[in-house]
């Protein structure tokens, strides 16, 4: 195992001195201002409740799942929320598989406090049968790439996953109303969680020079820093959690200054999360319309391969737009391709017709919502 430690990345003295002296003059190695965040982008996976967050070079994937369990004795009417953080060895050569290290546990606890203890997620709505069955929401956070500031990225991933998660609808039935029937997503539309507010974590790094502090440190800055503080706040002005575990002592005025900065940053990030979640929800709703109108289109247009090709085509488009530098290949025999050209022509004609008419009757009697969907 000692040989493993020899493989960890160590920062050279030159790099340390360079970062420190650059910070004294207010310069950061990646060219940002002291209080700037790196570029934050949130992508959603194919299932509800899976999100991947890129914060500069840091990459975290968050997945939310649910299960019916017995509630805790002292809270028989509430569901539970639990957070599991996986420091995958792919993120950093020093992360070992197996038991989480102290930093992993700390990260899990900070996010847990911010989400659960501030009552961001409404747990009372997760109760199915008081005292017997409640929904337990489980969030798995996988750290894929450690580019620094894992707390903030993981927090955004957890929030994004929770915002897009849908739990199955269940109803009570049976003789005395004690039997719980869980409806599959095809039968009844699954329900989103009720989220009251979004607690955003903002991390500050302090350096040995008293007045220097930066927001959103990269992993090189983290290797040089003398202390760190994470403040979790929401846009209502509530402070959900503050974590400053050891490190360099910092005067009160600096702490207040940090909280003020954190408030503005939290507002920006909240807007970003809300916008991307809304975009995802609208796309999901459009997808649902397409899926439901497909059986109708089958009867009317009469040709099966065309409809399916459209669906697969739009999936392709999503794939291409969602990833960078990929090659999407379809291995299909030639006759299928001819069919697709035909379907493109038919589609083209119907689209122009419906745009001209603007009415509910289009050429083949296809519902307008199908034509107007993302595939056009």
């Amino acid at each position, binding site marked *: 195992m000692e040989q493993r430690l020899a493989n960890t990345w160590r920062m050279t003295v030159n790099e340390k001195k360079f970062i420190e002296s650059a910070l004294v003059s207010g310069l950061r190695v990646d060219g940002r201002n002291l209080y700037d965040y790196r570029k934050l982008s949130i992508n959603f996976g194919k299932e509800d409740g899976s999100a991947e967050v890129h914060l500069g070079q840091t990459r975290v994937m968050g997945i939310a799942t649910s299960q019916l369990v017995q509630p805790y004795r002292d809270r028989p009417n509430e569901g539970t929320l639990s957070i599991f953080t996986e420091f*995958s060895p792919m993120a950093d050569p020093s992360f070992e598989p197996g038991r989480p290290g102290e930093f992993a546990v700390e990260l899990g606890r900070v996010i847990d406090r911010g989400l659960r203890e501030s009552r961001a997620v409404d747990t009372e709505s997760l109760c199915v049968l008081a005292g017997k069955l409640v929904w337990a929401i489980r969030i*798995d956070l996988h750290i894929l790439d450690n580019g620094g500031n894992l707390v903030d990225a993981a927090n955004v991933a957890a929030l994004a996953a929770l915002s897009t998660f849908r739990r199955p609808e269940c109803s009570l039935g049976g003789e005395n109303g004690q039997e719980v029937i869980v409806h599959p997503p095809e039968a009844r539309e699954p329900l989103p969680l009720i989220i009251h507010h979004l607690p955003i974590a903002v991390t500050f790094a302090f350096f040995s020079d008293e007045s220097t502090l930066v927001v959103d440190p990269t992993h090189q800055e983290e290797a040089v820093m003398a202390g760190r503080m994470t403040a979790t706040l929401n846009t209502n002005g509530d402070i959900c959690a503050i974590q400053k575990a050891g490190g360099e002592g910092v005067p009160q005025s600096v702490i207040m200054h940090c909280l003020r900065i954190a408030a503005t940053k939290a507002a920006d990030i909240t807007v970003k999360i809300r916008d991307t979640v809304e975009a995802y929800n609208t796309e999901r709703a459009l997808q649902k319309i397409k899926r439901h109108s497909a059986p109708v289109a089958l009867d009317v247009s009469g040709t099966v391969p065309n409809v399916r090709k459209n669906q697969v085509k739009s999936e392709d488009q999503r794939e291409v737009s969602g990833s960078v*530098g990929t*090659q999407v290949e379809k291995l299909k025999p030639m006759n299928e391709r001819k069919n697709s050209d035909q379907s493109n022509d038919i589609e083209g004609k119907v689209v122009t017709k419906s745009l001209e008419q603007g009415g509910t009757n289009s050429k083949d009697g296809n519902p307008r919502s199908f034509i107007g969907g993302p595939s056009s």
Partner: protein
Amino acid sequence: MEIDRADGRNPNQLRPLSCSRGVLNRAHGSASWAQGNTQVLAAVYGPKAGTKKNENPEKASVEVIWKPKTGQIGKQEKEYEMVLKRTLQSICILTIHPNTTTSVIVQVVHDDGALLPCAINASCAALVDAGIPLKHLAVAICCCLADSGLVMLDPTKLEEEKMKAFVYLVLPNSILSVLPEESSSVKGEQMEQGLITSVTHGVMSVDDYLHCLERGRAATSKMSDFLRRNLQPQLSSDSSKAG
């Protein structure tokens, strides 16, 4: 006899493949491979000094860590780790860097059938991205057998569950060579006729198995072309991974 597959493919059709390399910054090599909705992310670190206790220090060793999407690591994950490790050990040239460990970490992003073949393909691409010396590439595919005896390629999760049996096959990639064919044969048989790994689930007759093998081999030539095209060096990416 035609069986209608839910997504409109015919039995010999694979789902759309997509592969991107160099997706992670800290890892020495990384690749994301998607077959339809199944997506796997693989990262490679190595070679690192030293081997584990029960490994042979005269050779390089490969360590595989499989991370499921959610939940604890159980027996299924351990089995995948073992199969992946043995497969990758047979394609890596182990004599070049003795007493080192190359770690391959696989993260399941989404599972919609044919998960292990997708992971093997992703790991192979990640090994190439990391520059680990390999003898040849490995191309993995899943063939499933319906009750009627029809062999279908690359099933989705629903299809896998309904089938009588399915087999994961890993074959070496097809050779693109200017040399005449005889020089690439090993012990009188063509190298591309070899089979690296085969994992079966369910009951199938010997004839059905050989039939699956044939179909799998035909499909892997197309996949090898895709892989070869995709592994061409990318012009615009930077290659400095120091630190």
